[in-house]
């Protein structure tokens, strides 16, 4: 039960004394032998468990990359599915080491809720999914509509803001799980489902007749989604942050999982530094000097991860759009490795 989980994590928050010294998270992870990674409870392209229970998705690959960085083995991750309501409490209380669960970076989460966002894996925005037969062409025509939304998300707040700003009447139904929202949309309990656009595409392919549904053109919010860690452990924060940056840098430099060994012979000093051939940039993090090369080899660069999970190589076929590299018209930009 969700409530039970919330309760136990709350009690954990009350009683657990964790060591205060920096690097405590990494020490604990090394002792356990695996990373506890909080992921979504079922969102194709982001984190989705198949019949055999093996996870795939962009959020999942971020955790695999962190495991590759820490252990040199991308398989040393334990995935913990969390609902939107549970996720931040689970992170705060130490039930997970890192939360990679399409979570929106906001000021209140960064400040009052005691967590730190390490970067942006996916630039998203909120949209609406609706049955074609209702004949709605714009979100402005949704006055009086019943809307399915996931409880405890920024989506829920944006939805109310949007309807208030446009003076429209709103009847929301808040479910704990996105599956329940999708089922309700199909049954006609709600007219329209709202969520981040990426999720809408993901949920649409789960419907019985995906072609009967369209995503409305309006994008009503900014939703930068990224990995989250607890406040107060800067070493761990750095590792998670730079794992993502390495993947973005690798794409920019043209290094991918197939050519990484070859690229070690490259004469480009940027590439040499990243792959640990030259300098001690890897050791600076308290990890193996070639950890960045291992991440790229075992998981891939950002472009590979995107294509495989949500892009052209996946059933979702989402355009790169805002998630293209900065020098290709997108927003993905990583600080240099030096």
């Amino acid at each position: 039960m969700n409530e039970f989980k919330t309760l136990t994590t709350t009690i954990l928050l009350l009683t657990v004394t964790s060591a205060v010294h920096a690097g405590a998270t990494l020490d604990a992870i090394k002792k356990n032998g695996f990373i506890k990674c909080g992921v979504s409870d079922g969102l194709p392209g982001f984190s989705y468990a198949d019949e055999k229970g093996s996870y795939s998705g962009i959020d999942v690959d971020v955790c695999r990359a962190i495991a590759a960085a820490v252990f040199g083995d991308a398989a040393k991750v334990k995935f913990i599915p969390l609902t939107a309501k549970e996720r931040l409490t689970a992170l705060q209380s130490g039930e997970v080491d890192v939360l990679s669960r399409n979570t929106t970076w906001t000021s209140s989460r960064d400040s009052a809720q005691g967590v730190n966002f390490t970067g942006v894996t996916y630039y998203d925005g909120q949209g609406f999914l609706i049955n074609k037969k209702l004949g709605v062409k714009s979100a402005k025509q949704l006055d009086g509509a019943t809307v399915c939304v996931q409880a405890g998300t920024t989506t829920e707040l944006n939805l109310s803001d949007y309807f208030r700003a446009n003076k429209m009447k709103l009847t929301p139904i808040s479910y704990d799980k996105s599956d329940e929202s999708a089922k309700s949309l199909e049954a006609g309990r709600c007219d329209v489902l709202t969520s981040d656009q990426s999720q809408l595409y993901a949920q649409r392919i789960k419907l019985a007749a995906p072609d009967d549904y369209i995503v409305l053109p309006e994008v009503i919010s900014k939703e930068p989604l990224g990995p989250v860690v607890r406040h107060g452990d800067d070493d761990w924060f750095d590792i998670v942050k730079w794992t993502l940056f390495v993947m973005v840098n690798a794409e920019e430099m043209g290094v991918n999982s197939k050519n990484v060994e070859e690229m070690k012979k490259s004469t480009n000093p940027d590439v040499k530094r990243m792959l640990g051939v030259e300098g001690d940039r890897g050791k600076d993090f308290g990890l193996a000097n070639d950890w960045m090369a291992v991440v790229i080899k075992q998981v891939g660069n950002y472009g590979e991860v995107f294509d495989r999970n949500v892009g052209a190589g996946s059933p979702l076929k989402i355009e790169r759009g805002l998630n293209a590299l900065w020098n290709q018209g997108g927003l993905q930009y990583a600080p240099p490795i030096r």
Partner: protein
Amino acid sequence: MTEFSVPPVKPPFWNNPQFRAIFFQAAALVATVAFGLYIFENTQDNLRRLGIASGFGFLSSPAGFDIIQTLVPYSAASSYGQVFWVALLNTLLVSALGIVFATLLGFIIGVARLSKNWLIAKLALAYIEIFRNIPLLLQIFFWYFAVLRAMPAPRQSLNLGDAFFLNIRGLYLPALQFQPGFGWVLTALGAAIVLVIVMRRWARRRQMTTGQPFPVLSTSLALLIGLPLIAFWLADAPLHWQVPELQGFNFRGGLVIIPEMASLLLALSIYTAAFIAEIVRAGIQAVSHGQTEASLSLGLNFGMTLRLIILPQALRVIIPPMTNQYLNLTKNSSLAAAIGYPDLVATFAGTTLNQTGQAIECIAITMAVYLTISLLISFIMNEYNRRVALVER
């Protein structure tokens, strides 16, 4: 003969029972307080270290989300404090209605279980065995995802006299709108209630002195219905119906019972009724059959026997376990979160907790509320029990 006088030996103080009693109580108290302080300090420490805000200040900041069912005025601009009231009232509504329906249904099934008619008795038995042995959460899912999902879309609503509409969005009913002059109807109702009380006292006294019974029930009903009706007619029908109308996506106007509430209420009532039926059966069977025979031989009819002889005695057995069922029902209503009914757990301990990150405060408030509701129900039922209990003379 020599006499020995043994000087009284004072036992060591640790063998003194009085000292021991006080010592162990004090030790337990100190340990409890120390543990409490440790938890408190530790929590404060953890919160500070993680940089999580604490305190109850968040209750006055705006919530920013809408809620599907609100019994008091609420909008996205309202505060988290108002979210709390809305959520609490939703919990109380479904619990109170659940208690009423479960009790009515439970009594009927319980009596049916004892029926001399083979079919009725076996049907009641089947009901009890089926519904109390299926987990409640599954029953809620059954009603919500299987039964109420089979309803038609708003445009194909089941229409009853152009006033009642049933569809997948819920049951739409006409809403009452009071016009000026409705006060007269209320006054008439008040007068009727006073008259009924006076009449009942008079009838009782008359029966005590003369032995002549008076038809109290039918007279009361005539007064309670008749007087307000006359006032209603005299005041020119000061009551309008606001009928729901299909507009755009949905019906507007009127009242709506949302399917989330309906399925939760159905599941809670039907499930708890199965337990109540068994309690009622046990209570009735606890009254020895000789009492019924004695009563019948004294010339009382079966209805009077049930009302005057059996039920007053059965209630003494029924009330205490019934309290447990009422408490269970109230606490089980928190399963609402599973189907999106905005009760206290879903809306306050769920959404509010998540939007504010104030886990400890939200959970503490929620636990305190359930504790208070449960203690209140216990208190009321204990009071009632005291009144029906056997008075020893």
